[in-house]
């Protein structure tokens, strides 16, 4: 295990991504401990300019943009991780069993996967969110998670099929192991690195999905996320009043979080797929 970590950290891309991510994470954890200001409290003037006590100014509701940014980043990240976890979990289970069992089960599962792969998940996200009138950030995370599993399922299925007829799997089969046990002990370990990378990408796309759905006015309620901050900034035309502090920080925060995740993913990819090392 220790050896694995040292290999991973040899990649400069992974290192950089990891450092950015940990710094962001630490700021999200430590800042609320030091500063207990409520991110939703309206203490200032609309679009108040940045000043000594107000590093990023105030938003359209007169709320401290910096405090909001940290709180919003945290909620967005939680949504991303939950959604990514669900999407990876569902995709993994469907892909593993479809790919391993084969036959009719596989036909049905991969048909469903292929159908949901072409129907834009963004549309299903809109249709479900419109139907749910009260949305917490947990609901948003659940909905995003359950609409974004198809490509993980397809990729895991392809990998499982390539492993299905290996000798060690056949040996386990002959020894009379049950299907869940074979899948868990003989196949899963071989695709674990791949699943880890898929999870990282799903977290990044979960954060982007939250921003997309929030921009449409279908985001979570009674909370602050990066997508909601952008939504408010556009609704109150922050860009037209030149209030760059209302939209630039959330845009950069979204970009920075997903950038660090993607960097880590690329770093991991180069380690596990030696063929694409430049």
């Amino acid at each position, binding site marked *: 295990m220790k050896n694995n970590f040292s290999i991973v950290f040899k990649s400069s891309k992974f290192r950089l991504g990891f450092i950015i991510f940990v710094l962001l994470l630490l700021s999200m954890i430590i800042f609320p401990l030091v500063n207990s200001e409520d991110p939703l409290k309206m203490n200032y003037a609309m679009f108040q300019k940045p000043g000594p006590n107000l590093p990023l100014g105030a938003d359209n509701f007169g709320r401290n943009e910096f405090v909001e940014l940290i709180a919003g980043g945290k909620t967005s990240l939680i949504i991303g991780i939950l959604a990514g976890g669900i999407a990876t979990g569902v995709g993994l289970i469907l892909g593993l069993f479809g790919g391993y069992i084969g036959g009719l089960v596989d036909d049905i599962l991969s048909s469903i996967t292929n159908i949901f792969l072409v*129907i834009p998940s963004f*549309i299903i996200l*809109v249709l479900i969110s*419109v139907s749910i009138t009260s949305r917490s950030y947990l609901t948003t995370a659940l909905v995003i998670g359950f609409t974004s599993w198809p490509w993980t399922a397809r990729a895991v299925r392809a990998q499982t099929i390539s492993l299905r007829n290996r000798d060690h799997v056949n040996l386990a089969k002959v020894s009379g192991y049950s299907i869940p046990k074979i899948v868990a002990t003989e196949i899963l370990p071989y695709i674990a690195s791949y699943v880890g990378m898929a999870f990282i990408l799903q977290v990044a796309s979960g954060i982007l999905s939250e921003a*997309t759905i929030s*921009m449409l006015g279908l985001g979570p309620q009674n909370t602050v996320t990066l997508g909601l901050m952008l939504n408010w*900034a556009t609704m109150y035309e922050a860009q037209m009043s030149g209030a760059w502090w209302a939209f*630039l920080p959330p*845009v950069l925060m979204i970009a920075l979080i997903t950038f660090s995740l993607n960097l880590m993913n690329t770093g991991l990819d180069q380690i596990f797929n030696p063929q694409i090392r430049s």
Partner: protein
Amino acid sequence: MKSYRRYMTSKMVWYILTFVVALFLNFLLPRLIPGNPVSTIVSKITSGMADTNSIKRVYETFEKEFGLNKPIWEQFFIYVSNLFHGDMGTSFGQYPRKVTDILASSIMWTIGLQLPAIIVSWILGNVLGVLAAYIKKGFDKVLFPVFLFISCIPSFGFAIVLVWLFAVVLKIAPASGGYAFDMIPSPTISFFLSVVQHYQLPFWSIVLVGIGGQSLGMREMSIYELNADYVKYCRLLGLEDSKIVRYVFRNAVLPQITGLALSLGTMVGGALITEIVFSYPGLGSVLFNAIAAQDFPLISGCTLLITTGVLIANFVIDIIYGLIDPRIKVAQQE
């Protein structure tokens, strides 16, 4: 050619099946709203009306239009048959305009914006990607993180920044709309110029973000191909580099076509939101306003139209892929 026809037919069957599923989801999901949607809608429309008789009439009209007093499967057939008659119902928010009329007036704006933007970003992204992989060294070291960072910015976020920078700070581009607000759409030169002017910012915010994503995929595929044996063999034979790059490009671009098909849904989604930032008169803005007004027939019309558009685009990509990938032709002949 017979084999290719078989490939096409099987693809077509799949897309029709997918369309039916999309149709069903489009019908079912909004109807899962707890409580009677008609009474929710009617109470919203009739708030302020005192006459119970007219409230009752409004209620009955809506119930009849949606056939809500019938079992759900029958409602589905009514929905489908209305659809084939080109009837998507009447908009609540822009009453009494027909949903189909609203969609018809906005779809050309969306296609006109997104189709060129996605194609341009795909082509530019792929060329830059293969160059980054080939030139390596400084070029790759600088370009890779820059592209990765750009591809991580959602296109609507990028759009807000572009509006602020070019329309508000530098004042060299209009900030919103598809044409100047004091104009009426007409086939005149001044109107056309206004459209072109308003086209720039939304177009480039979609293109630049798209280039980032596409070039990364292409770079990775090209590195993979550059390490392949045939490239080493070509080098050994002393082939010119420009010729080798062309071979690499051809092999690496095939998976990129599939990649485009897979990322199309997300790209279209992001681009629709970009329209909102610019109040561009396309489907994205219509969808946004429909959601704000809880205009269910219009929301459902938008989602169905967008899904259909993405499905058609995917189908076209599949057909092109079958034409240019020799492996598909060979596999079909066996």
